[in-house]
Each structure stands twice: as C-alpha cells, then as structure tokens.
C-alpha cells in the first residue's frame, strides 16, 4: 500500500514538472517565487522573475505575467542566483603537470564532462566554475570558465583560457627563495620575448607565433589575469611585488592565514579567493593557547571583494553553501556570506555584469530552493542555466537511490 502510494506520487510529480521543463526551451518563462534573494538588491517576498531568451528580463513584486509566458510555480520556494566557484581544480584527471613551467597547457583539454564533481556541483546549485590547474606547479597553465552541464567540454564552455595559474608554493625539496628566483627568471624571459616580438612586428617579419609563449605574452600584455596561489600571508607581498614589476593583472588565491595580509590586499583593492579551510587552529604566542582563526572576517571588514571555494577534503567544505553558512557562524553578515558565493566570484571571473545576481539583463542562472540557502535542511529543487532547466531533484535518480525510499522529501 505504502509503496504503491509513493509510486503514484512520484509519477504525478514527474508529470507536473515534466510539462513546464519541456516548454521552457523556448518562449518566455515566468517564475512565481515565494522569495527572491537577488544578492544585488533587496530580497523580494512573493515576486516574479521573467526570463526571455536565456536572460533575466524582469524581476518584480506583482509583475504582470505575459500571456505567452509559461508559468513555473515556485511560490513556496526561494530563488537565488546560480552559485559560482571562482577557483577549482576538480573535474579533471590530474590537476598538475610535473614540469615547473607550463603556461601553454589548458584545463580545457583536461575537463571531464562526466566527472562526478560536475554532477554534484549542479546538485548543490553551482552553475559556473573556473577550472584552473592546481597549486603544485609554478606556472601551471590556463583555465576555462564552464557550466556543469553538457556532454562535451565545448558544450560546457563559457569562456576558454581566461586566466593563467601561478603558484608561489615551492615544490617539495626547494625553498621559497629558489622558487621565487626561478619564477622571476621565467617572467624575465617572457618579458624579453614580448619585447623582441613587438620589435619584429614593426619590421613586418611576421614570424611564426610561438604558441608556447603566447599565454605568457597575453598575461604580460594584460589580456588575461593571473590567479596567483599564495599559500602563506607572506607570499602576498611577493605576488604584489611580481605583479608590479612585470605589470600583470592578478587575482589572489589564498592559504588559510591569508587574512594576515588583509590590510595590504585591501590597500591595493585586490580580489581574493579564500582557502577552503575557513577556520583553523593556531598557537597564540602571546597567550600560550590555541585559538581558532577565521580567515574571512578581515576581508569583510576591509570591504574587499572575496569568494569562497570548496575542496573535496571533508564533507562540509565540499559545498559552497556550507562555506557561506560557516562564514555567518563566525561573524559575517548574511549578505556578505551570500555575496562570497555569487556576485563576489562573478566579479573575480570578470563576469560581474553577466553573472552572480538576479537582475534584469543577466544570465538566467537560477536556483530554486526548498528553504533558506544557508539552512542545512534546504534542498536544491531545480536549477536553470541561461533559462534552461538543467536539474530537477524529482528526477535525480542517483539522489533518490542514495537517500532510499524515505529520502528527498
């Protein structure tokens, strides 16, 4: 009896949800939302989001729904912008090359569309991520912005080779000083070759383009930024020195104690991706006791643009919403925490005009939740990317199997 009842219910649900999703592919869609967290502006209780051609056309309380719009009833749900991961090296086979300087490699060649990371990201409401090489290689290569849906890398691609990864973490067995010296040598060489090439261009010699050096040239010409991994706070100072010496744009990827350099970072208005471990224990030598440090507070206080990131190391830190919730636990405001997983990372990707908030004109990357985004009991019910439904919990077979017959309520 019980089993039968459940089967009927799931069939019914499937029917209900299948109908609009098919229709969403074309024509305008109106989402009647119980609550809209726009991130960029006020939260709206009981509003409508109108989506046209993959973009948000309007967001308003009491918006008149056009006659041709398909209506998606989320009146008991909360709608937030799609979450954004500003720095990850998951979703690939191996994150690092062994050679210390490989600017010419690209995560494009490595991204695996069927990697469980992407599937799980979608389940968590992440709609955009920058996949970069890992932290072990000095000049690690280029990264791509992708969406976690599609069967080929091309289909997933939002923007290709948009950033170069540089790591200030010395390889095991080398010192920081030797690492920095080697990095300076690489940058000197690249700067030299840029200079040479510009001189030859004038002579119209049109030499073969050195594809291997191209990424470094694009970095030094300011076309793409570097994402510089600074495992300790002291590395920030060195990153700044490098960026100023070689005149490149830079975003920082910090280690747990990066907050110690928050003043310096704020002074230069640098954008930062915080370490996945937002809190850690440190011996306070003044008081001779262990204290818990929270890495985001000083950045919020200094009004820096910062983003959280995830790792697969533990259950909690694998999820962006969990990172934001942790942030509020240790003193961030709700708005600051939410911004650090939406608009903050969008700006760090240079896509602040297109992603990260629910505003007319932006991509219709929307996540429909059963409750508050920072509540551990909330489920992601549905995800839309550029207006298309790409995830529905009711159809999430793997989730259902994982939770058993009573799960996914």
């Amino acid at each position, binding site marked *: 009896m019980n089993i039968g009842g459940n089967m009927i219910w799931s069939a019914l649900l499937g029917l209900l949800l299948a109908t609009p999703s098919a229709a969403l592919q074309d024509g305008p869609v109106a989402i009647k939302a119980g609550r809209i967290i726009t991130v960029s502006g006020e939260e709206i209780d009981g509003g409508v989001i109108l989506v046209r051609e993959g973009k948000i056309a309007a967001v308003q309380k009491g918006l008149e729904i056009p006659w041709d719009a398909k209506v998606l009833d989320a009146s008991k749900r909360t709608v937030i912008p799609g979450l954004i991961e500003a720095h990850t090296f998951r979703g690939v086979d191996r994150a690092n090359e062994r*050679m210390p*300087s*490989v600017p010419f490699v690209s995560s494009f060649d490595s991204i695996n569309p069927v990697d469980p990371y992407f599937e799980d990201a979608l389940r968590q409401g992440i709609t955009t991520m920058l996949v970069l090489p890992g932290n072990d290689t000095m000049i690690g290569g280029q990264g791509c912005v992708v969406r976690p849906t599609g069967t080929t890398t091309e289909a997933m691609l939002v923007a290709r080779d948009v950033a170069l990864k540089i790591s200030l973490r*010395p390889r095991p*067995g*080398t*010192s*920081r*000083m*030797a*690492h*920095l*010296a080697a990095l*300076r*040598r690489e940058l000197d060489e690249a700067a030299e070759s840029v200079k040479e090439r510009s001189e030859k261009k004038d002579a119209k010699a049109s030499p073969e383009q050195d594809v*291997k050096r191209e990424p470094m040239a694009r970095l030094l010409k300011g076309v793409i930024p570097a994402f510089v991994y600074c495992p*300790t*706070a*002291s590395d920030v*100072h*060195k990153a700044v020195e490098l960026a100023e010496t070689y005149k490149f744009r830079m975003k920082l990827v910090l280690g747990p*104690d990066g907050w*110690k*350099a928050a*003043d*310096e970072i704020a002074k230069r208005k640098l954008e930062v991706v915080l370490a996945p471990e937002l809190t850690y224990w440190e*011996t306070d*030598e*003044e*008081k*001779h*006791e262990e204290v818990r440090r929270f890495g985001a507070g000083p950045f919020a206080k200094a009004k820096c643009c910062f983003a959280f990131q995830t790792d697969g190391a533990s259950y909690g830190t694998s999820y962006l919403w969990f990172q934001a919730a942790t942030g509020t636990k240790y003193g961030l405001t709700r708005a600051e925490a939410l911004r650090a997983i939406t608009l903050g990372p969008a700006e760090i990707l240079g896509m602040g005009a297109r992603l990260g908030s629910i505003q007319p004109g932006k991509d219709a990357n929307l996540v429909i939740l059963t409750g508050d985004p920072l509540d551990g009991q909330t489920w992601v019910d549905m995800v839309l990317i550029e207006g298309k439904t790409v995830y529905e919990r009711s159809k999430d077979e793997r989730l259902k199997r994982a939770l058993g017959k009573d799960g996914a309520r």
Partner: protein
Amino acid sequence: MRIAGVLLLLAVFGVAAGRSPGAVTAVRTARVHTVSNGVIERAIIIIEDGKIRDVRASGEIPEGATVIDASIQVVIPGIIDAHASLADSGRDADETIAQDVRAADGIDYYASGRRMLAGGVSTLYVTPGSRRLLTGQGAVVKTAGRGPAGRLLAASHGLRITLGEEPKNPPALFKPPVSASSGDPIRPARSQYPASRMGQFAALRDAAAAPGPLRDGKHPLMVLAHNADDLVKAVLFAGEIGRPIVLLDAEEAVQVADLLAAKKVDVIFNPAYAPGHRDVADEARPALEATGTLNGPLLLEKAGVRFALHAPSDGDTRDLLFIAGAAVRNGLSEEAALRAVTLSPAEILGVAKRVGSISPGMDADLVFLSGSPFAPSTTVDRVMVNGEFVYERREADVITYRPIRERAGKDILAIRGGRILTVTQGILPEGLILVENRKIAYVGKGRPVPHEARVIDASGLTAVPGFIDFHSHLGFHMDRTETALRRGRVGGAAGAIGVPPSKLVRLDDPVYRAVAASGVTSILLAPDSAGACSVVKLSGEKAAVVRELAAVKLTVQGGTSGAQSLRDLLQKARKYHDEWEAWERAQKEPARPAPAPTSETGKPPDPISGAWKGTLEAPEQNIKAEFSAEFKLEGTRVTGSFQSQAVGGQPEPVEGTFENGELHFERSQQGSKVEATMKLAGPDHLKGTWKALIPPLELKGTLECRRSAPAAAPEAGASKAELKEPRKDESLEIYRPVFRKEVPVIATARDLPAIETAARILREEFDLDHVLLGGEDAPYAGDLLASKASGVALGPDFLQERKGARLNSAESLAAQGVPFAFHSSGFSSTRTLPLTAAYAVRHGLDAFDALRAVTVTPARLLKLEGRLGSIERGRDADLVLLSGDPFSMTSRVRYVIIDGSIVYEAK
C-alpha cells in the same frame, strides 16, 4: 614588586599602542644605554611617528605627549642578531652559484617574533641557504612590525658565500627543456664546482666575471668560514675583486685578528656558546680546540677588529644578551659586549642609520630591562619596535609548577656583599680561611694569620667551594674512550661498563687543568651509556682520583617491561652481592673442625649460634652504643666476632664458652682486653655485663642483645668447606658498593613513567640511594621523589619550553625540596657549568639554590660531603675566588684552588 611593575606597564601599554601620525610619546627611564653616545642616567626619550626625535638627560616633556613611565627600567637599543637562518633556508637550490636567490622571499612577515622579542632581539640578518657556495642575497628584517613594510630594513644586503666542507660536491644539474626538440635537445646532467677549495675560488671568480649581483651590484661578501685558512683566503679574494667583506661565524678569527684589523674586515663572530644546550662545539671538535672561543670576543676587541656577536642557532637568538654576558664574564667590557649586539652589527649590515643605537632619527626600537644588561636576574620587561610596544613580559611566560596543596611561605635568602659563602654554614662577610695539609683547617674571623703562611689578598673577592659537575665526559674526547672502554668490558649486564672511567682516561690530559679555570674543581666522570663512574679532581699536573668507583650508572625505561628489566638486573646484582658477602665472611672466620659425624638432622637449633644485635652501655663514661656479634656454638665452645663503635668499630674475633645457659666470651690484644658475660633471658635474648680495658680507659657496663638470624641449618652448607667461591663478574662487581650503600645509583630516566619506576623500585624494593639523570619531567614527580629521598641531576637543558612558555626544572625542584645537582653531560662543556647555574638564576632559580646545586648537593648525593662541596673545617681545600657574586655575569674567576694548591690564577 616586579609583577606590580608589569601590571603598571600593561596599563600604559593600551595608550602607547594606539599610534597615530604626529603623536608624540615621551619615555621616562632610569637609565639609557645609547651605545652611540654613552650612558644617560634618568634620560627622557621623545618618540614621534615611530622614530626617536630626541634623547636627553632632562628637560621639558612636549605638551600633549603621551608619557610612558619606565623610571625603574633600563633602556637599551633593540638587539640585533647578525646571523640568523630564519625562513625556510635550510633547503638550498641545487645551483652552486645562485646569486638571484633572495632571503627576503623566504621570510614570514606575519610570524610572531615573541620568542626572540622576549630576549630583546628586534632585528635579524638573514641569509639564504647554507650548503652551497654562493647561496644568494641576505636581508635585514625586524622581528616585529606591521607586515613586510614595517619589518624589512634591507631587502637585499650582502652575498652569502660559504667556505669549508659543506658546499663541496654539489649535485649535478639536470634541466630538461619544456618540450624537447632538435633545436632544444635534452642534455645530460651537468656536474658542478666545487669539489675542493681550488674549485670554490674558481667558481667564485667565474661568478665575479659573469653578469649578476656579484659583478654589477654593490653587495659586500658575507663569507661564512670556520678555520683560519679559509678566512685568510676569503679576505684575499675579496681584495682581488675589490669588494668589502664580512666574515661570518669565523671561530678562528682570533688567530688572524691582526690581519683582519689591518684590512678592516668586520666579523660576525660565533662565540660557540649556547646557554641551555649541551656544548655545540662538542659535536664538531675535540675538547681542547673549542676551549678558546669564550674569550674570542675579548681577543678580537684587543686586536681592534670590529665585530658583532651572533647566536649559534636560531633557537638561541633570544639568549643573545646572555651570550654577550658570557663574553663579559670572559673579560670583555660591558660596553663592548653591548655594542657587539647592537650598534656594531647595525654598522656591519649598513642599517646603522635606522637601528642599533638610541639617538635622534633612529627607529624607536627599544628594549626595557628590569636592571643593568648583565646583572644576574635582569629580565626583558617589554620591547618597542617602530614606536609600538610589541612585547610585554607576562606571568604566563614562566611556568611555575607546584603540586596542588597549601603553599608554604617561600624562604627569601638575601646574599649581599658576601665574602665567604660557606654554603653549609652561612656567609662570613669578612672572614679567614686557613688551609693546612690540603684541608681546610679553619673558617671564621679573628684568628691571626700564621707568619709562615702564604697570603692571598682576597679583599673584595668572594670565596665559594669548588664547583662539582655531577655528570661529565671530560677527557673522553668524544666517544673514542668509551668505545675502547666497551671493547675492554668483561661480560655482564647489557651495556654496562665494569671498569671505572678514571682508569681509562689520561689523568695528565691538559683538558683537566684547562677546564679548572672555570671554577669547576671536581667532576663525576661517567660513561655515556651505563656502568661505573669515578669522581676526579681537575688538579694540577695530573687529575686526582677522589673515588674510583663513585657511582653506578644505569638506564631505566618506564612501563612494565622497563620495571621488570630493572628488577631483573638488580636482583641479579643483589644475589651476586649476597653470595660474595657470605663467601668473604666465611673466609674471615677461623678454621673449625668439621661437624661431628654424629650430628642428627632432627636436632633443634642451638640457642647461641647466629647473628646478634643489641646495645651496650657504660654509664660512668656515658657511653651507649650499638653492637653486633656472630656466634657459633660447638659443644660448649663458642667462636665468633664482635663489632661495636665503642670498642674500635672493626669486627674483632672473639672466643668463649657457653655453659648452663651462660655465655662468656673475651678478646685480648696488645694490652687491651674486652670481655662479656651474658645469660639467656629468653629464647634469642641475651642479657649481661661487659668490661673493657683499653689503656688508659677502663670501661664497664651492661649489655643486651637479640638474635637477628639463627645460624643456617647445617645442611645448607654453613661449613666453609661447602661454601663455593662465587664466580667473578666485572659488570656486577660494581654493584657491591651500591648494595653496601657506599655509593649511589645514577639512573637515566627520561620521562615521568621512567622516573616513577626508578624511584619506586630503587627505594622500595632494593633500598638503594639514587640520583635520576635526564628526567625532564622530574618537577612533576616532586612529591614522589621527595618521599623516596631521590636526587635529580639536571643538564644544561633544564629549561623546557611548553607552548612558548618556559619551565625551569631547577626552580621547580628547589621549591619542592628535591635535592638536585647541575651537570654538563659534555666533553668540554664542563667549563660552562657555572654559566648553566647562572642561566638557571637568570630564569628564576634562587642564587643560593643554584650554588648548592653545584657544590654541596652533588657532594651529598655522591656521599662525599665529608670531603667536598662546602667551606668547612676538615673539608678538602677546593676553593674558587671570584670578583663578585658567583653567578653574576660581571664576576670573574680570580683564583682556583684544589687540594690547597693554586691551579689557576687570573692575570
């Protein structure tokens, strides 16, 4: 008083920390050592924007200035350690020449410098790498300050070059191209210079000819080298390429001091003394070679070489002021010593316009001391860097461990202006010590000096007993002697050495006399692992053996297996001891006829045979003494021995009869006669009278005794014929004096379980006197140790660090009444034993406790207090005369006297 001061300072701290641009701060001080411009009493320092604006003896305090009251404190410039290897510089690049590596890249600018600040060190010179020839550019950096901007004084200063063995034979370089092609092929690994000193200088010449900081920059060469030969070669090379040069470490700079002075070469000198550690020099070189460095600074000063002192390792940086104090103790003036850790390094490092002295325009990096820089218990109370307080001494920095119970009031002993510190009988302000026949014949005042006496005018000096090092390897010359010793050992317990070390060292080894100059007069010479130990005096031409077998060393592990193996060893030793005692006793007994063949086995034991103990009295002479006796009854004839303090103390054979329940025995020898008559007052109980004639004395009185052990049953082989001579075992032989309680056991017990195991088993199960060695946890077992009458021996590493705070084991043991002695555990570091005690005083130990720990306590623990450890009538005349308090850094050793002869006299 001090705590009140700190609290007061904390109140001020809040105000001073909030610095805003243009704010003026005025510091009132008791005294300022400007270093550049002498000492100013009651000086006022005016600080603005993190810089010193003025320092003057008195005058108006500017209006609106925040006033910091340090009027009970002495202010010196922030201390500079001119050679630290902070950051992760332990790892080097592969390249033998790596000019573009910068130390500034390896520094953590946000790290807490509290440990160094606690020693007043506010600036460091950091160089990269240590195992390659030219490892890159150094940096001058502060230990506190806001981020890199606040801390970096010079991002790039000096090219670090290392000579000697370390940089020889670097690895081959292998650099594959990013993607190999015909134009960019993979090349085989390239070998590198240098394998020899020829190669070192060839590689340096190559580097000096190639583009790079060495050819194009203005860096001085910072050359680290140890031996005189390398130092000279480096100076010549610098001259050749026209570069200034600074020598680092340079332990042998003293030998070429004149050359260095002539060429104006600066030295950042390694005094090779690290307080709180076993002697660093010991690990690298034989004892005598290293004895010269403590007075190195003095010799450099005399030669006119500009030098800075640096701490031998990063861990010692915070003790740099104490290390400078050690140079003062070895003859350097206080002024020069302070300069060597402030202004001189600042000048050598090219940052003297910002740090190193207290004068207008300098960074406000100030150290606030509780007293004079080299006074015995001066502490760093607070430190200011860039005008902000970055360190405050806190109570939490010192662990004072006390068991939880009612605290008794702490005795406070004031020692002031003392002349004779007798240790056991107080202080004589102006006294006289008479030495006769190698012994102290008189201590006191008011006796005329015999006209034939040789007189040392000790007015103004302080006399203390010669110091005793409770555990030393002096004369072993690293472990070669012990290896020989092991080879010579004869069977026995694992690792134990049965031969007394005094037989294995050369007693005429000159190290003994050299070390005596430090004030150490006796040492317990011990093997590193286990076995016999000897007490030796560092006297004259030849060391004198005080006691050949003075202690037995063994190792105790905690836990059940540790306890069991200790028990096994001691049971074996006790059995061995008992067998031999029985055998030797039997040998002393006079021959007796074989037992009658008719004796029956079922016969009841006779009432007399066996061991007796009791007391005797002679009321007229007021004598009351204990005696012991052994009797053997055969028919009516009684033989045996009698022993009592009243009649000579030695066991004497006696003969007599036992008839009708009455025992009569006597002994006569050379005109003296002792006899006694006793009746059985009950089973095993004799009572009677005695008399003795020992001309001119005549004694008589009563005596009474009880049988403590009946005679062994006849079948147990009581007869001499059946007692077999036990086999001799050298490694167990040494335990016999231990079981006779003539010498202690020295038990190495490294942790709390081991300490508890050792104290319990040694005392409860075997009742052996013992001293625990190497137990860091000893303070935590204070109650147990006190109840088991255990002693503790503390090495130079008695100061432990727990989460950044420091526990002074010596101080904690003193507070709990556990006797402890200091030791050096070193080959040549015995000479730093007084400094170890001084270091303990510096860290809170009462000076008198420290003195006892190097004099009477080790003597008592070794059961030699009748000869050593105090200035008392009848003791050996081992004396040290100092210019001041024994543990003050400004005191100098003037005379060392051993067995009445002068073995050292300061010139």
